[in-house]
């Protein structure tokens, strides 16, 4: 299984400078994918989820274009060939 993860530029340094990562998660959920991402890149993992495993409040994750907050959350199924995009939300000041 192959999943493409797309990162914002501000997080690319934490993934070896690449905005595009290819992962092969053990399971088929977004949580499985993010677990593998955190295992490979711990600092990147912490930017996306807190230590309870929740996706941070101002981080949005899209699976094949759908915001997981409005679908299955971390239990969202990630298919072979999917694209998972991480984006900062509209926040700040």
């Amino acid at each position: 299984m192959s999943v493409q993860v797309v990162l914002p530029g501000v997080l690319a340094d934490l993934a070896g400078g690449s905005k595009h990562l290819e992962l092969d998660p053990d399971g088929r959920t977004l949580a499985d994918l993010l677990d593998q991402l955190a295992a490979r890149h711990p600092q990147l993992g912490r930017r996306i989820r807190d230590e309870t495993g929740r996706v941070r409040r101002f981080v949005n994750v899209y699976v094949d274009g759908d915001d997981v907050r409005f679908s299955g959350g971390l239990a969202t199924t990630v298919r072979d060939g999917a694209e998972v995009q991480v984006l900062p939300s509209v926040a700040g000041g």
Partner: protein
Amino acid sequence: MTDLLAIGTRKGLWLARSEDGRRTWELGEPHLLAQEVAAVCVDTRRSRPRILAGIQYGHWGPTVMWSDDLGASWQETESGAIRFPEDAGAALERVWQLRPDSADRPDVVWAGCEPHSLWRSTDGGCSFSLVRGHWDHPHRPTWEPGGGGGAVHTILPDPASDRVTIAMSTGGVYVSEDGGQRWEPRNLGITAPFLPEPPEYGQCVHKVAVDAADPDTMVAQNHFGVFRTEDAGRHWSSIADGLPADFGFPIAASPSVPGTAWVVPLVADMQRVPPAGRLRVHRTRDGGATWTESADGLPDGAWTAVMRDAFCVDEDDPTGVYVGTRDGCVYASADEGDSFTLVADHLPDVLAVRAVRLP
């Protein structure tokens, strides 16, 4: 001889240096730009001074970073310096306080965080352990967050014993005599005007400082009221007479002169600005019996505020006093608050200042 002033703001950290005995300061370029730095300390116990910063990456969460080369480079622990253990069921929201312990405990650093939690590092601040005696305290579920959030914001380790004094908003003052295993509230005499009756705990103590005379003597700036204890917090009495307002966030005590302390009064509860818009530091030299206003070098028309950690003293002689404001100004005094000079302006909101003489 270099004096270093670390300035944590809502959007980064600035370092100012003085090479002439704190008469003039040179402000450097920003570090950690766009990241909130609510807690900062400079640990001079090490062979190379270490700057520790409690940062909030904005979208990407909080952590602790450090620099061993005065800001030239920054590091953070891969898995995070402060992480709640899984069974705590909590996530770090913000680092409010970073406090090196005494010279006799050179690798011990304390952190106070939101949610209400106390942390201890034995590796100079690279990684911290949750102080379970505090986290598991039966009072914890009833500690309410103040307007800024519920946090341990003041940590005062006693260099001569295992006593640790902390303050929380809200929660009040708690003391451990055994290094953090057991804790008891010590708030008798501290008011809580937002509650119907004075409670045993639950006060909104904004800051506490230890007097130079002995560790049992402390002063506290409360959410209304300025107080002093001479018995390690078991009894507090008001020392607010003579101040133009008894509300404020910071309080600092001289590290060398007994009975000397400083506050920055604000009109409250709703306004939270200096009285008549005149930013002033008030100093006592007699344990709070009388207060003297310091105005030289401080502005009028300053409709701003000074946060609890945006105020500090150094350990030089005479004591330096440092004030950072929410409108991005920093003032420094090299004469115990008699007069101030402007170190910086137009910075983001100043959240924390710490000043040290570099070894």
